[in-house]
C-alpha cells in the first residue's frame, strides 16, 4: 500500500503541491485527473524520488520513501513512467528495454519480462535495433511504457500514457495497463481526463493547483455531472 500524507513540494519559491494526501491500496488502480500544470507530474516525481519533498511522508508498505534516493526507491519496485519519456536516445530499443531491468530485483526475471513486453507492443519487436532518437512520438511512448514494465514494478506511477497515441493504440494501452493491474501491481495513473480510465479505475482523485479537490470511488464521481463536465469532457 502506498500512503502519501501531507506532502508539500516546492520549485524554488513556487509551491507545486499543497499538503497533499493520497492512498493506493494493494492491487488497486487509482486515477489522478487534473488540468495541466496543476502538479500531477510533480506528485509522481516526488513519490519516485526525482524531486525532493520539503515535508510530508510517502509510505510504501510501511517504508518511508521520502528522503530516499531514486535508486533505492526503484529497487523497492516503485517505478515511474515519465510523461516526457526520458529514453536513452543513442541506445537501441532493445538496449533501452534492458536498461529498464537495471535494478537488482528486476534482473533475474529479465528474459520473461522482455517477452511479456514484446507481447504487449509487437511493434517494438520490429523496431528493436533502431536507436530511440529515431522513433516517432507514439513509438517512443510505447518504449517508455515497456521500459517501465521491465523494471518489475510492484507500484507503477504512469504519467499521461495516452498522449500522442493513435486511437487504436490508446485503447490497447489502457487494456494492457489494466492487465498489469490484474497481475497484482498497484497503479497510480495520471491523465488530463479520460472516461475510459475513469471506468477502469477503482478510485479517483481530482487535483487543482496542487490541492486534491475531490476523492472518491469512481462510480460516485461518474454520477456527478459537474465533475463529468470539467474533468471528463463529457456530459
Amino acid at each position: 500500500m502506498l500512503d502519501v500524507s501531507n506532502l508539500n513540494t516546492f520549485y524554488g519559491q513556487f509551491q507545486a503541491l499543497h499538503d497533499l494526501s493520497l492512498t493506493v491500496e494493494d492491487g488497486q488502480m487509482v486515477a489522478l485527473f487534473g488540468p495541466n500544470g496543476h502538479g500531477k507530474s510533480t506528485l509522481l516525481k516526488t513519490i519516485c524520488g526525482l524531486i525532493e519533498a520539503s515535508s510530508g511522508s510517502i509510505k510504501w508498505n510501511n517504508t518511508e520513501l521520502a528522503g530516499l534516493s531514486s535508486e533505492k526507491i526503484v529497487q523497492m519496485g516503485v517505478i515511474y513512467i515519465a510523461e516526457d519519456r526520458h529514453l536513452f536516445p543513442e541506445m537501441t530499443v532493445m538496449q533501452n528495454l534492458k536498461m529498464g531491468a537495471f535494478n537488482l530485483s528486476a534482473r533475474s526475471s529479465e528474459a520473461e519480462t522482455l517477452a511479456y513486453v514484446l507481447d504487449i507492443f509487437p511493434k517494438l519487436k520490429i523496431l528493436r535495433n533502431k536507436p530511440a532518437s529515431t522513433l516517432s512520438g507514439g513509438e517512443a511512448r510505447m518504449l517508455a511504457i515497456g521500459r517501465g514494465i521491465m523494471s518489475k514494478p510492484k507500484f507503477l506511477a504512469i504519467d499521461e500514457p495516452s498522449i500522442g497515441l493513435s486511437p487504436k493504440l490508446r485503447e490497447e494501452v489502457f487494456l494492457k495497463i489494466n492487465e498489469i493491474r490484474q497481475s497484482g501491481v498497484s497503479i497510480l495513473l495520471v491523465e488530463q481526463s479520460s472516461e475510459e480510465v475513469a471506468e477502469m479505475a477503482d478510485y479517483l482523485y481530482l487535483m487543482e493547483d496542487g490541492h486534491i479537490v475531490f476523492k472518491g470511488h469512481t462510480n460516485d464521481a461518474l454520477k456527478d455531472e459537474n465533475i463529468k463536465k470539467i474533468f471528463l469532457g463529457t456530459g
Partner: protein
Amino acid sequence: MSLNDLIEILISGITIGLVYFLIAVGFSLIYGVSRVLHLSYGSFFTWGAYLAWIFAVKLNFNYFWVFVLVCPILYIMGMALERFVVRPLRKRDNFDFNVLLAGLGVALFLDYAAQAFFGARTKSLPSLLDGTIQIHDFVFSYQQLTMLAAAVVIAFALWFFLEKTRQGLALGAVAQDPVGARIVGVSLNKVYLLTFGISTILAGSAGILLAPRFFISPLGGWKFLIKALIIVVAGGLGSIRGTLYSAFLLGILEALVGWLFGLLWVMPFWFLALLLILLIKPHGLLGSTADH
C-alpha cells in the same frame, strides 16, 4: 618509395597511433559519459607519470608494483575532482562553460603543483622492458610492444565494460539522459565518480606507459591534451571505437606526411583531415547523430 620504406613508415605510423589511442581513450570515455570536456586530463597524464617516477626511480619499485600503487591514487584524485569541483557545478547554470573553465583552473593548479614538487626539469622513466627484437628488416623495441599490448588490453577491457556489463551500460545511459537513468534506478553520482576515477586512471597509465618515450615535465600534458581533443573529435565524441580508428588514422597520416613533406606539415595536414572528416561526417567518424 620502396616497399620496405613504406612498411617502416606504416610501423611508425601505427606506433604513433598507439600512443594517441592510449592518450585519447580516457578523454573520450569521460566526455562520452558525463559530457564534460575534461581539460585537466593532460595534467593527470603528467601526474600519473610523476607518481610512477616517485615509485620507480626514487623508491625503486618494479613496474608491477608501480601500477598497483599508482592506480588507486589516480582513482582517488579523479573521484575527488568529480566530488568537489564538478558535482557542485553540475547543479548550477552554465554547467558546460563553467566546467570547462574549472577544468583549466585545475589543470593550471596541478601543473604548477607538479613544478613545485618535482621541479621544472624534465624527468624520465626507465623503459618498462629494455631491448629490441628484429623481425626481417624491422626492429621493434620491447617498449613499443608493451604499448601495443597495453592498448589492446585497454581497448578490449573498455569495450567489454561498456557494452557487456550493466555498470558500463549505465555509464551510457547517464550520458544520454540523466533523468532517464535515475528512472531506471541508476545512481548518477556513483556513475560520475566511477567515470572520473576510471578515466583518470586511463590518463595516468597512459602517462606512465608513454613517459619512457616522451619524458615528464610539468607542462608536458598540454601537447597531448590538444592532440587527444583532435583525435576524439575526429573519431566522434564519446565513441571509443571511433577514437581507436581516428588515432590510427591520424598516426599513420602523421608518419606519411612527415616522411613525404616534413614534420612541420603534420599539424596543417591534421587540420585538413579533421576538416574533411567533419565536413563529410559532422559528428566525426563514428559519432552519434543525436544532438548534444
